[in-house]
């Protein structure tokens, strides 16, 4: 093996180590990992690698930071990276949204204050997102004081989850059985027996609104 080839291999190994490491990789760590390789070879390979990265156009750079080496995006591209993550968080259905969707699905038609009471937190913003995504819609107003909106799931929701109708929504026992899991005893009760509730003001007064309705005075 010619010395050049050898350095080629060494550079490749060092590069992969720097890339895969969560923290900047120090010379010391490299020497220890590449046990048997003369430290001056490693230093030389590192210098060559630094030069190559320096000459390389593109979006990444090799930097020396905190006594070690790390591959990072070029600072002038940070705005784009920020946009990527912004786009990501816009797209993502957060745990919050999923929980809210689940409550709407299993308790529909249901009002914002009722959802907030079950979840223990205010959910109005998340509900808006779900309505925007056409997974949830307003189906009327509940005939209680404040006349809060009643929410239910949409046709789109059924399609997304591969359900024919709301009666298809699985009960926890169904899924536990299909997947060979234990059903937590506490969770077998309290499911809606008749999942399909027509749009109809619920005369049941037992759940008082827990949160101011949309209307503000």
């Amino acid at each position, binding site marked *: 093996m010619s010395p050049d080839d050898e350095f080629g291999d060494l550079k490749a190994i060092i590069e992969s180590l720097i890339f895969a490491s969560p923290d900047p990789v120090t010379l010391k760590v490299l020497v220890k990992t590449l046990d048997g390789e003369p430290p001056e070879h490693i230093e030389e390979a590192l210098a060559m690698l630094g030069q190559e990265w320096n000459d390389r156009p593109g979006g990444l750079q090799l930097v020396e930071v905190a006594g070690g080496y790390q591959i990072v995006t070029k600072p002038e591209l940070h705005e784009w990276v920020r946009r990527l993550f912004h786009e990501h968080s816009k797209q993502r259905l957060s*745990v919050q949204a999923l929980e809210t969707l689940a409550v709407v699905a299993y308790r529909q038609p249901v009002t914002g204050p009722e959802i907030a009471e079950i979840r223990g937190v205010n959910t109005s913003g998340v509900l808006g997102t779900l309505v925007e995504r056409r997974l949830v819609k307003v189906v009327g107003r509940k005939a209680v004081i404040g006349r809060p909106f009643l929410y239910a799931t949409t046709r789109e929701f059924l399609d997304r989850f591969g359900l024919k109708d709301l009666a298809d929504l699985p009960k926890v026992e169904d899924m536990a059985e299909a997947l060979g899991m234990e059903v937590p005893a506490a969770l077998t009760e309290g499911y809606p027996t008749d999942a399909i509730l027509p749009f109809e003001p619920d005369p049941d007064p037992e759940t008082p609104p827990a949160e101011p309705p949309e209307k503000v005075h």
Partner: protein
Amino acid sequence: MADDDNRAAAAGGELESHAHFESILPEYPFKVGDFEGPLDLLIHLIKKNEVDIYDIPIVLITKQYLEYLDLMKELNLDVAGEFLVMAATLIHIKSRTLVPRLETESGDDEDDEDPRDLLMRRLLEHQRFKAAAELLHERETVRSAQWARPDGRVEEIAGEPFERELEVDLFSLLQAFQAVLSRARERPPVRLPEEVVPIETRIEELRERLATVEACGFEELFADVSSRRELITTFLAVLEMIRLKMIRVFQQGTCGPLRIYARMRPTDAPRPLNDPDQGDASPAETSGEDEDKG
């Protein structure tokens, strides 16, 4: 091939970390309890006897299959139901192969088919998926040798906390609902403070309702409320509406039911208390003015 390897593969639980993927062509000696299911056992017997899967000697294979089940029973091993179902299938196939067909039956298309065909197809398909699993495992091995930029650096790069996107399905939906329910159960049963609906809001609601009907009974105005606070709010709203000359109240007889009518507000009607234009109106000034007796 080492016996230990075979044992690890055959016994492997779903997450057994030391279990590694076995070749689908094991040459291991017959070991009781090694087979996950009847199809595995049949494949083993076919290979052991070096017979053609397209022309299974059903008598021989059935005999050996049943011997295996007997051995399992002798050793007090649990014989899973699937093994018994397959035994019945084999016996059925054997009987159909051995019994000469009657003239009357030969007209039936189904009877023209070799009774072993269905079994053969199942075995081939089973093998196909075992092969696929092995191919997948090879891909997995290559992939697991590729290291991506560590996740730990994401927040540093993103400059914000990062939450990985969920691939939402029915299972996660149900899981989310379970999480909500169990949290709700753990929460101390504290009621969030009851909402205070302003009288103005209630007036607006009552006005909307009266706009759709000519008149309604006094009690009907309270039909949609239950709490004491809501009852009081509604009662105060009615009083205010009378003062503002938005409604008229009639009573039939001294103890008869009250009836409420919406009315056009006269121009000189008092203004609401919080009306910015209002200056002179006070509750005392107009009280009782509109209460006509019928």
